[in-house]
């Protein structure tokens, strides 16, 4: 009772202050005649020069590209920083009706999996490719969480060019983590499952979790020149949940660290069952040693069944191949390859500082943030400071590897990134703030509220050797009153924070697409100069491409009709097609003959059971259509391409099945000036 009164006494002045602030802002909003509501929590930390810090004048470019995952939309969105302007949405695991990705014949194969066509996924973590431990701006790797997949986006085109399914994985959450020179991209399973060692999971009782469930960590080799992925091998690991990972750097360069939870191996009601142990584990794997063991014949092999889909550069067409086996290592057979470090209570984020010496583990249920020392870990391994073992994997003593703990950082620590100036920044989900602390003495030096409940935070390069310590982006899980209300479903919010000074300063709120879980950012000049403006028509190797109007034609083979068409401002060739019959499968292969920047043409046909397709200059894309009724069907260009875009249209005549109307096609009544023919050889 006594203490309660004391608490009230100390809290009273604060409460009074809060009320004063509230009254102040109420008065302010009254004086702003329109009465439009402000977000409940107006940023009192907002500095007066915030507007100029994020203002990118019309026609000027942003300083950085940022890539925010879309979470449950299966896409990546690209924002300019510091303006927070949305630049592009890149479809990865989801069909995208806007440009035909996953709908047209060329890109459908990207979404093939061993479960069939899966046109959606939950995309959590983007990771930029690396050279010497820093981002190099060539590719972006992303994970598909639900149907385990890893995808690669080419930053020359900002298009998804490769998707690989991950076998023996269930919930590819702990993914994808590139090593310092993209030697490997590493992907761990979130769910452990009873592997049948034949490429599937066994039909076992769920009671048997503890005995039969296992996890896997995949090592995907990356071609240093082209970026192509190849699953080199897996490590079969104890049946925990593998949450997140990050690679070492400098002294710890050979290592990758994984947070795990559910070391209790609970198979049901995990919110309780997986929260019993006081400590779970940080798993440390020496990937170089693993690769060495793999080479030295420690590998086992088992049957598998997984899809690998690649976009061919010349044909702009994706092709699937099915892989039939996978090689794996068992940690118990590979001494020195894997260790477990006890980490408090269901840890989430694992982040390694730019020097590579400190591993920061954010235990979302823990009251302190433990910071491990890589040097101490090396000593502990040397001195065998073990605390038993788990499935043949040595467990290191907590105290022997700990540098120290950040005390009372806030509630619900999730993720940490670094500014390269000796500071770490941790997101606090429960207390809804970002906390800045010093790596050397682990003392909290600043905190800033965010609106509301931040998940991941990101500093450009903040997970690499060379952070760009000027901005921090907080990706918040709850939006509530930050923007004009839009019904029950609200855009998630991101907040840009200036971290160049001693005190963090809130600069900007910007709404995001779906649910960003994590992001990457890179200085614009590492990416922008390589951006492709259009595809060269001469290099178009699509088998159905018409590289000039004279190559356009319509042919029938049985009940399949191929229309090889061209589009150029402002007409299709042909734009009159006859002789199609009900029940035919018609493929419109449309080649965009334009060789100029920013002149896409779209293509759509009335009644087609698919999306339009948007064709970039120099490319060929195919729309499939099965007409169901006789009649005349219009087709048209869907992208406002020119002053005569509205005229860019045509007709297809569909006759009854068995009709004797011959295949006929034309453009214009007489030969006209056709610019497409003009300069193409």
């Amino acid at each position, binding site marked *: 009772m006594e203490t309660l009164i004391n608490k009230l006494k100390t809290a009273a002045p604060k409460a009074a202050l809060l009320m004063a602030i509230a009254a102040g802002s109420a008065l302010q909003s009254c004086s702003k005649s329109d009465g439009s509501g402000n977000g409940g929590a107006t940023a009192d930390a907002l500095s007066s020069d915030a507007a100029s810090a994020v203002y990118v004048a019309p026609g000027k470019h942003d300083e950085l590209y940022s890539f925010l995952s879309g979470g449950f939309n299966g896409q990546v969105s690209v924002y300019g920083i510091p303006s927070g302007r949305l630049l592009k949405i890149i479809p990865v695991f989801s069909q995208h009706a806007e440009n035909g990705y996953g709908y047209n014949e060329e890109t459908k194969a990207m979404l093939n999996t061993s479960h069939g066509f899966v046109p959606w996924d939950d995309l959590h973590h983007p990771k930029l490719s690396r050279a010497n431990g820093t981002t190099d701006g060539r590719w972006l790797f992303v994970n598909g969480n639900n149907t385990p997949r890893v995808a690669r986006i080419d930053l020359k085109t900002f298009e998804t060019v490769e998707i690989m399914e991950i076998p023996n994985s269930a919930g590819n959450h702990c993914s994808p983590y590139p090593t310092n020179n993209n030697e490997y991209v590493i992907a761990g399973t979130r769910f452990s499952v009873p592997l049948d060692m034949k490429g599937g999971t066994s039909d076992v009782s769920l009671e048997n979790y503890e005995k039969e469930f296992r996890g896997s960590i995949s090592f995907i080799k990356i071609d240093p020149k082209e970026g192509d992925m190849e699953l080199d091998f897996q490590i079969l690991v104890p049946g925990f949940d593998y949450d997140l990972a990050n690679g070492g750097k400098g002294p710890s360069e050979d290592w990758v660290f994984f947070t795990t939870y559910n070391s209790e191996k609970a198979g049901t009601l995990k919110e309780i069952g997986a929260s019993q142990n006081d400590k779970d584990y940080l798993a440390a794997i020496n990937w170089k040693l693993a690769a060495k063991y793999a080479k030295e014949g420690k590998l086992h092999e088992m049957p598998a069944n997984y899809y690998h889909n690649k976009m061919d550069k010349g044909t702009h067409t994706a092709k699937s191949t099915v892989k039939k086996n996978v090689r794996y290592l068992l940690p118990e057979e590979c001494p020195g390859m894997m260790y477990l470090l006890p980490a408090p209570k269901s840890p989430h984020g694992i982040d390694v500082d730019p020097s590579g010496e400190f591993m920061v583990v954010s235990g979302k249920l823990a009251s302190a943030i433990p910071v491990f020392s890589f040097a101490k870990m090396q000593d502990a391994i040397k001195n065998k400071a073990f605390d038993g073992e788990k499935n043949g994997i040595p467990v290191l003593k907590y105290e022997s590897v700990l540098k120290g703990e950040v005390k009372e950082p806030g509630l619900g620590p999730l993720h940490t990134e670094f500014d390269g100036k000796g500071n770490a920044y941790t997101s606090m989900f429960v207390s809804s703030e970002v906390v800045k602390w010093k790596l050397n003495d682990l003392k909290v030096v600043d905190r800033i509220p965010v609106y509301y409940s931040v998940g991941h935070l990101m500093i450009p390069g903040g997970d690499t050797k060379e952070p760009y310590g000027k901005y921090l982006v907080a990706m918040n899980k709850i939006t509530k009153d930050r923007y004009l209300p839009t019904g029950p479903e609200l855009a998630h919010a991101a907040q840009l924070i200036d971290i160049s000074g001693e005190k963090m300063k809130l600069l900007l709120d910007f709404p995001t697409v779906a649910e960003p879980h994590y992001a990457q950012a890179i200085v614009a000049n590492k990416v922008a100069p390589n951006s492709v403006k259009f595809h*060269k028509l001469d290099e178009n190797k699509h088998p159905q491409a018409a590289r000039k109007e004279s190559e356009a034609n319509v042919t029938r083979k049985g009940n399949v009709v191929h229309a090889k068409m061209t589009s*150029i*401002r402002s007409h299709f060739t042909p734009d009159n097609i006859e002789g199609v019959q009900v029940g035919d499968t018609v493929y419109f292969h449309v080649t965009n003959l*334009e*060789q*100029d*920047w920013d002149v896409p043409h779209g293509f759509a046909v009335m009644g087609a059971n698919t999306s339009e397709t948007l064709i970039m200059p120099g490319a060929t894309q195919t729309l499939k259509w099965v007409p169901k009724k006789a009649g005349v069907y219009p087709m048209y260009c869907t992208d406002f391409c020119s*002053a*005569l875009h509205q*005229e860019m249209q045509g007709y297809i005549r569909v006759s009854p099945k068995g009709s004797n109307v011959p295949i006929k096609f034309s453009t214009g009544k007489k030969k*006209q*000036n056709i*610019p*497409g023919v*003009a*300069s*193409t050889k």
Partner: protein
Amino acid sequence: MKAFHRVLMIIAALSLGLLFLFPMWKIYLKAPQYPEGLEMHIWVNKISGSSESVLQNFNILNHYIGMEPIHAESFAELKFMPYIVIAFMITGVLIALIGKRNLAGAWTGLLMGAGAAGIFDFYLWLVKFGTNLSPQAPIKVPGMTYIPPLLGRKTLLNFEALSLPALGSLGIFLAILFGILAFYLSYRTAKKKVANTPVHSAA
């Protein structure tokens, strides 16, 4: 002609080589939709531009006003002009070797004539393209023609056209300049020599 004049004549002949290294003329187009600009480069033997597909892009824009598409193949000049230039270069060098001043003068005169004819021919093409418009053109502005400027700036609908000689033309200019110098200096030297020669009173 003395050795120095012969050297000037050789320089004059070789300057024409610039025509094979640089375009003669450049037409710059600027429009709101082309912040990066569009450039057509006219060479002695080809037509190119600021990007590989510039002709196609010019033609796409021009077809709305009914202008005939521009192809390098439709200009016979591009086929024979290089031979004329080479002929000038060879004869120029030969004249230097022979060392006849009057030949140098004639050569320079002919070159000036050829240059003027070239510019006139170019102007005729501009007029032809600018006025010979298809009656079926989607965009028809009564009374409007689209003759690009021969030299300088002109606004054509949403385009601002700028036409300027390029480095290749400098080759012709230098050839004429050095040709004149070779002729004139050699002439002056000869005159001085004549003046300095004692005159026989008997004549």
